[in-house]
């Protein structure tokens, strides 16, 4: 199920590059503020020290599978990278750079995920340096002590693994979030001791944290956090969220709900302050402004019913309640904080293209 969502999201991003995809969200459009996927990934990473590794592995696995599918569909001969480890360095670099730029950099740039570039290659030991400029995962965050683009570290090593059909791993050597000019990754053989050591340190940071409240203020005030703008394709959000669920969908959905709930508590005062509106009005304004969904609220705080339209995490081919778990957790806290009554999720289901949620007072 989650595999399918990931494959669909990859295919949809590719379709967008090829101009074969129409807009799936007629009212809101198919872009969202990058704060949304960013805050979700970071909240999860903060919630559990195992998440960086899980996120990396899931992203790597799905990127490798899809890179393989894409180059196969592209018609790349199966022996195109045959004996790559023995290729002359210059030829290896030119060929890899060309196909990465033409295919994968093009997909990622079109989705406004960032600008991918292969910058250096060494054949033995195999080390590929890539730069990911304008990175969606960390844009606008400047106060992190550690590099934190785990999803992209997994994705980029997965793409290169799928492309040359070798088991690669990678880690981030520079990250915009901790003062780097760009996010740079060093990728090499899984068995390479240097890569293993770099990966182990990278994936097990002592603590990761970012001030998501002040990061949110930048998005609410339309302050550009990167040169290519603050918006990103909704397929990226779907891919990122699906990858957080891939290893163990049921438990990951529960953790995701909890992480969403904690983020909601941190954000409620920011929203109330920014919109200056009573009660729940600011919730609808917030999600609509950042391109997450449009909402119609019914009932009162004895049973608050939300009809969510064009929801970014469950639109197009994606109809899975697991995908909405972070959002429903976040909404539970926001409704609780902004109504002054502790609310709990009572109902969550799809009604056609809409997502229906109902919250009732706890107990």
């Amino acid at each position: 199920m989650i595999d399918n969502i990931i494959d669909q999201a990859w295919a949809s991003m590719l379709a967008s590059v090829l101009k074969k995809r129409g807009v799936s969200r007629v009212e809101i459009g198919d872009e969202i503020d990058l704060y949304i996927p960013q805050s979700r990934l970071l909240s999860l990473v903060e919630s559990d020290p195992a998440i960086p590794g899980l996120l990396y592995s899931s992203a790597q696995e799905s990127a490798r599978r899809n890179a393989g599918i894409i180059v196969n569909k592209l018609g790349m001969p199966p022996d195109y990278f045959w004996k790559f480890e023995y290729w002359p360095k210059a030829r290896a670099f030119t060929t890899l750079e060309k196909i990465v730029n033409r295919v994968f950099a093009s997909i990622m740039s079109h989705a406004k995920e960032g600008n991918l570039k292969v910058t250096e290659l060494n054949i033995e030991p195999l080390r590929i340096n890539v730069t990911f400029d304008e990175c969606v995962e960390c844009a606008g965050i400047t106060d992190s002590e550690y590099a934190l683009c785990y999803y992209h570290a997994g994705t980029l090593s997965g793409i290169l693994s799928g492309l040359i059909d070798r088991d690669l791993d990678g880690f981030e050597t520079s990250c915009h979030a901790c003062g780097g000019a760009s996010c740079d990754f060093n990728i090499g053989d899984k068995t390479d001791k240097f890569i293993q050591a770099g990966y182990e340190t990278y994936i097990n940071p002592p603590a990761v944290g970012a001030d998501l409240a002040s990061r949110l203020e930048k998005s609410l005030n339309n302050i550009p956090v990167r040169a290519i703008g603050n918006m990103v394709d909704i397929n990226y959000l779907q891919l990122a969220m699906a990858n957080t669920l891939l290893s163990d969908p049921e438990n990951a959905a529960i953790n995701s709900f909890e992480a969403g709930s904690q983020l909601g508590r941190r954000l409620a005062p920011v929203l109330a302050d920014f919109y200056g509106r009573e009660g729940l009005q600011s919730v609808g304004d917030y999600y609509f402004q950042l391109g997450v969904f449009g909402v119609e609220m019914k009932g009162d705080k004895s049973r608050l019913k939300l009809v969510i339209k064009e929801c970014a995490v469950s639109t197009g081919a994606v109809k899975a309640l697991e995908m909405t778990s972070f959002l429903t957790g976040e909404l539970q806290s926001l409704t609780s904080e902004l109504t002054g009554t502790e609310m709990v999720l009572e109902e969550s289901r799809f009604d056609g293209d809409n997502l229906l949620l109902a919250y009732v007072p706890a107990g």
Partner: protein
Amino acid sequence: MYRLAKVRWFLEEKAKILILCSASNQPPVETAIHSAGYQVITAVSEEEALHKVKEDVPNVILMDVMITGLDGITLTRRLKEDDVTAAVPVVMITSGTDVENRLKALDAGVDDFLTSPVEEIEIRARLNSLLKVNAYNRQLLGYGKDIENEVARRTNELTRAFERIKIASLDTVYRLSRAAEYKDEDTGAHVERMSHYSSAIARAMGHDEEFVENILWAAPMHDIGKIGIPDNVLQKPGKLDAEEWDIMKQHTIIGGEILKDADTDFIRLAQEIALSHHEKWNGSGYPYGLKGNDIPLTGRIVALADVFDALTSERPYKQPFSLEKALAIIKEDSGSHFDPDVSEAFFSIENEIAKELNFWKFMSAEPDSPDSEIDLSNLFDD
């Protein structure tokens, strides 16, 4: 010195003794071993003993089977047949008079006997001696493994070094081949494309990966002899006259000369290809007018791949033919120009070839040109 240190280290570990005995007979032996400072693992059946041994290999196995009727002989045989447990000393407790069973046990691989009733001092002395044997055995096994690993590492290094030399020389020849193509067609991409078509056909014909790999690397050298053709012939914009055509045909012979007397398989294969890729199945080709199976298989495969790529590529004097038109020409010439079996293999992978054709267009197109927008609509088919 190193070996002695290792043996000492083994002995200093708290040695594990597995005792196979009935529950009723367990305490005296177990107590004696415990008091000697060893770690005791007990099993009351042969299957349990085997299971525990696999889980955590002990240093000595002690079988008190005399009274219980447990089959210590079969168990010993199974332990000695397994590489993991073969070196673990097995001690059997028997009566002093049971010579027949002792002989059977020795035959099965039992290393020592204790006579019932067993004295604590005797157990300690015997175990101490057997633990030293076990430590030496383990050290020797480890030493053998170290040698095996070292040999594997060196072999791997040599293989890689050989591969590197092979690829480095291939790369040199590959570049020469591209140089010949540059002279002829403004692009070196032809050799890359046609060599991948060649390997795809070879694979479709069911050849092994070694053959497929060799043809992949040898095929690019098919036109290397063009280096020896004068520019006024090679680059003539119009049609060649008879004399010029005769000169042009010489590229196969020149290629064969350049590549002859090679020590390596793939260069010998490349020579075969250079000489034979313009031969035709019906005998009307050149340079020797070979016919049917007299033409080397590699030459027959490369002939088709070379023509297909020429048909589907842009040349100074022509636009690329459509895939359909190129396929129709290949089909029409099957049995005359091309080996029917090679054609059949080629058409069996028609879809793969069509995709590869798209890939080459995509890779060679300038960004934002129509060909850079490859048709990937089938990505969503499955």
